[in-house]
């Protein structure tokens, strides 16, 4: 009798303990929100949210805290990474899911997955040692190799495993009946891939790309190491608009990391504000992914 009560008691206590564990994440999210927004509030208050996000001048020494240059930096470097990385990732995903013989896929898949495990600081180092010197050979005024292009190349490699593995999964989870149905109508394998499998896997592929985008926007250290970190609006240095990719830039993440340890007062608050803007951007992107997924399922 008492033993039974004790058992029931333990059961009840554990149930509560586990529920509290489950709610830990909510608590952390709330704390993150309260503290970053709280610490950002003075900057938003003194400078004004709109002025911060629309002003391109970041000069903490003279009290100028516009972060548009960093928003643009994050944006263009992410765009570059998506342009370079996504085609390769989707190609690899289709290759792994539909084309490669099983033994080759079995060797290629872990190779690509290994890329996901490599620390971002190693990518940064590789970028400094290999990619920056290559980019430096492009003749353009002021091109030192450190800049948007190098950062985009590094980021493209970093998002490759995420986008590849989620897209492959999406293609693989298309029901086998679709594949059979299409082949039985006399479609070639490629026609089946292009007209049935990829359209059916589209929601998954789109969310893979958006997850890659989120990862790219959030990357910090590798960006600091190769992008040059100048808090300026990226701009073309020659008549060729593509030379904008040779411009130095700074990302939102880099802005925080580079300056937080010595910043005080409004400057520190402005860095927290940068964090809030980054957080909001990434939340927007994630909800966009969720929305597109829902629409895609229909």
């Amino acid at each position: 009798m008492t033993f039974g009560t004790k058992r029931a008691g333990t059961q009840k206590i554990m149930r509560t303990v586990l529920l509290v564990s489950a709610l830990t994440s909510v608590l952390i999210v709330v704390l993150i929100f309260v503290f970053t927004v709280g610490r950002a509030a003075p900057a938003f208050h003194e400078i004004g949210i709109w002025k911060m996000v629309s002003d391109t001048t970041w000069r903490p020494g003279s009290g100028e805290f516009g972060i548009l240059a960093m928003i643009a930096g994050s944006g263009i470097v992410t765009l570059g990474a998506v342009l370079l990385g996504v085609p390769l990732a989707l190609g690899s995903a289709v290759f792994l899911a539909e084309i490669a013989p099983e033994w080759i896929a079995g060797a290629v898949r872990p190779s690509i997955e290994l890329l996901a495990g490599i620390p971002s600081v190693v990518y940064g180092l590789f970028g400094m040692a290999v990619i920056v010197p290559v980019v430096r050979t492009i003749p353009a005024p002021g091109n030192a190799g450190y800049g948007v292009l190098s950062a985009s190349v590094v980021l493209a490699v970093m998002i490759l495993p995420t986008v590849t593995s989620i897209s492959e999964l999406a293609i693989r989870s298309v029901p086998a009946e679709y594949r059979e149905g299409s082949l039985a109508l006399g479609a070639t394998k490629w026609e089946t891939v292009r007209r049935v499998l990829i359209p059916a896997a589209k929601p998954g592929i789109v969310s893979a790309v958006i997850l890659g985008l989120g990862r790219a926007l959030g990357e910090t250290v590798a960006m600091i190491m190769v992008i040059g970190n100048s808090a300026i609006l990226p701009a073309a240095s020659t008549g060729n608009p593509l030379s904008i990719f040779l411009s130095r830039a700074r990302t939102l993440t880099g802005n925080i990391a580079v300056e937080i340890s010595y910043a005080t007062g409004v400057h520190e608050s402005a860095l927290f504000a940068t964090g809030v803007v980054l957080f909001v951007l990434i939340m927007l992107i994630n909800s966009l992914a969720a929305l597109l997924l829902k629409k895609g399922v229909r």
Partner: protein
Amino acid sequence: MNRRKLSQNAAFSLFWAAGIMSVLIMAVVVGYVLVKGLPGISFDFFTTSPRGGLSGEGGIYSTIVTTFYLVVVTLAFAIPPGVGAAVYFSEYSGSTVGSLTGKLVDLARFGVDTLAGVPSIVFGLFGYAVFVTAMDLGFSILSASMAGACLIIPVIIRTTEDALKSVPSGYREGSLALGANRWETTWKVVLPAAFRGISTGILLSAGRIVSETAIFFVTLGGSYRVPHSLMSGGRTMALHVYYLAMETRAFDRAMSTAAVLVGLVVVMNLGINTITGRITGKQR
């Protein structure tokens, strides 16, 4: 007809090229780091601490120690709530749909999804605001590990939940039918059966901590001394690579440290693959 075959051949060549290219990229990145880094690695490299200096003299001893402490302390913070949350989601939340607890479960899930999407620098910023400054713990292993725990809690929850879900429901039914209650069933039957899967998740999380730089860049300081307590600052191997490359431009030492990191990642990946391989092998 011929055109259809031709376009298939053209498309498939491109896909082969993409697959080969991806493998090449991996080989070049890993190969370059290993080729440039391995020659600088000796026994002394592991047993001496960095001495500062402009060319990054010394080895990586203290950074190994710091990395190890940080991983252990971070896991200690993250495993209990992470595994606990996963157990709740997998074993307890089924019967709560619609009730108040059900709403809490939805909220908790939303929390996990949100947390998983937070960029690591924001965790760093949070750790800096709360642990380093507000709680006045300073740049320390304690501050850094609490901030790091936020990063890996969602990882542990997801992998543990997957591991629990793959435990056949017959195990649970068998135990419940013998008169065990839900908690006894979970503790004595389900968790042991999911042990390998949970270990994989923990190994994966340890890898994330070893690799992470941004969070610790703003919460751990950068001291290259051997830490003597939880309140000591320090630098992990990953941070050491950063400082060597950015502040001393000692690329050779940075490459050697990076080679150690990459080697560690490869070993961990192999470990994870072996564990999961055994799991699937067992289920067949």
